[in-house]
């Protein structure tokens, strides 16, 4: 029995030569450069707004995300400015990243009964899934629009009540849509 011999076609110089590929890539780069320049010059003189260039000059320019963007958390407040959160811990239960830590305590007002004395989110562990927002029965936690949150050390990434509910950007706090008093009066 003769052994079948397969002739393998070896790569030739034209196949292994990388220059054509690089040149082809550079062509694309130069095309974008020229197009962007054509597009950029009128915007510098103020004739028209730039449209084609896909990148932005961060941080001078900022990208605008949709209003449904799930960014850093916000704890909502009641009309009187106190926290809406009832410390039921459903967000902590639902959190897949295990980044929410709540310490509950007894409120002096029996109609409030339970409230958080500490609410901490370890934002570096957070995966921004929004499950906390979904689990919340009283609209106490929302995912806000912020996404640039630098910090210089680890402790700055653990957000406490002061940051989550009353940071300056929130201008005194976001009021929850669910009001406890109205609910009580409605007999719920």
């Amino acid at each position, binding site marked *: 029995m003769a052994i079948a011999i397969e002739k393998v076609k070896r790569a030739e110089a034209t196949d292994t030569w990388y220059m054509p590929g690089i040149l082809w890539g550079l062509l694309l780069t130069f095309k974008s450069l020229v197009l962007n320049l054509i597009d950029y010059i009128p915007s510098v003189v103020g004739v028209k707004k730039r449209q084609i260039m896909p990148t932005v000059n961060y941080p001078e320019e900022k990208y605008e995300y949709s209003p449904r963007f799930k960014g850093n958390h916000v704890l909502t407040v009641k009309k009187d400015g106190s926290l809406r959160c*009832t410390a*039921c*811990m459903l967000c902590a239960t639902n959190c897949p990243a295990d980044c929410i830590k709540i310490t*509950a305590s007894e409120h002096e007002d029996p109609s409030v009964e339970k409230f958080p004395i500490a609410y901490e989110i370890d934002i570096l562990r957070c995966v921004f899934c929004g499950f906390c927002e979904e689990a919340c029965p009283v609209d106490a936690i929302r995912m806000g629009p912020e996404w640039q949150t630098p910090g210089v050390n680890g402790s700055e990434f653990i957000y406490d009540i002061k940051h989550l509910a009353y940071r300056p950007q929130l201008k005194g706090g976001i009021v929850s849509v669910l009001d406890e008093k109205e609910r009580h009066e*409605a*007999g719920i």
Partner: protein
Amino acid sequence: MLKSVTSSGVAAPQATTGATSPQAKMVTISINGKEVEVKEGSTIIEAYYQSGLDIAHYCWHPGLSIAGVCRLCMVEIEGNPRLQIACNTTVVAGMKVNNSSAKVKDAVKWGLDFHLINHPLDCPICDQAGECGLQDQYMKYGQYDSEMGEQKVKKHKVVDLGPRVVLDSERCILCSRCVRFTDEVSKTHELGIFNRGDRAEIGTFEGKPLANNYSLNTVDICPVGALTSRDFRFRQRVWFLKNAETVCTGCSTGCNVKVYFNKEGLFRMKPVYNPNVNGHWMCDVGRDTYKFVNKEARLLEAKVVSSGKSQEMPAMELAKKLGATLRGHGTSAALVLTGSYSVEEYEAIVSYFKTDVGTKNIYHWINNPETFDSFDGLLFRGDKNPNTRGLLEVLKAQGISGSWKELVDGIGTGAIKTVVVAGPENQANFPDMKVKIAELSKVAKLVWLTSGKNAELDALTGDVALLPVKSYVEKAGSFVNHAGLRQQVDRVMTVVPGAVSLTELVDLMKEVGDAMTVKSTAATETVPAISANQIGQGRINNEFTLSRGVW
């Protein structure tokens, strides 16, 4: 998990008849088409529990009288045109019962709707959520949309019934379990139902708060979140907690309990049914015994103080050093034991002192001899040690009978130079702690084995060594209660990673003394101090502690 110990030392089979005596006459009835043999005179609901079938109910509790107020345990009995309540109907031979027909299901469903008419549904802030009868039974038997169009009746919230129990009247469904408990079990009659109709509320009488030593049982048997524990309130959601069965070490009754814990420590204790020990209940004092186990109260590292210098070291290192000093030390060494440790540990350390150290100077530190025999008539005993009886049996079997006076005299004359103290686990139960520390610290070298921190011990100068030992949830072992019942428990969790049990301590000390000795547990070598006929029936499983339980 807790192991059952019977006279043969084997795990007891799941006894389906509970405390039923073997002579009881049995009758055969049919439940949901299944033939079941039950004890004559038992009720239909008991027959359901004995046969492992589900039945809805709130007010019935196996440890209380029958009230028949919740009307949820409806069953259809063949030949009877109307539905009957299972809790208050006695079985008759040949009876055909079912709770699976559409008629029964409908009755239960709308019965539930009535219960929930004025219930606030504030589950998110209710401590009972996760172990609530309303939640469970709604999911099992309800799942309707409420047809209630009226406003809910507002009642009192956050009412202090007593030092330990908080009432929320809105959540209450008036099953009257708590009222019956104070009337029948604690016999203190603090609770009552006041007003009528949908304004009815649970309450106490003026100047008579719910302050008996069994008040927290009302929280356990409350099927909803109306009664909550002041101590546990808002500290954890129950679904974050794991649980395990063990024995309470608050007194010599040895109630079977469940401890609830997570990685932060223990949070609460609840009784587990055992007809031979505690029935369904436990006392409030016992429920606080988890507190001395948690890390904040514990000694974390071994500490050696000598010539004014204090040094921390791992417990294992200190144990090995101790072994080197104690081996062959002879009669100038002494051992002081308290009733907080397990039988296996006593056997190990006593035989170590007898054989390896070579001394019979072993003494029993009794914390409150004058109240030792007192008993409140229900569960709580004056002997606030879990294992005094086990200790005495071990000492007797090893032929040791030292009196405390001998020890004090020995220290005074200088005949005893080294004292090893297996100190109390729950220091709150040892009012003479200060006195004894002062007395024992006169010795040349004091070694104190303790699970908890103690300011007086820390303040000692002299030649002192403190060694952290495991608490009762961190080790396996058995405890002998006041009646001679030996109960075996398994390890639940680790609180202090560096702590050692007395058995482990002995093993560590032995290894130094004789490096060639095969590592062994002393307990397995020695003859058990408690003879077989003294081992009564320990924990048993029965119909009420099956997986679903009774709230």
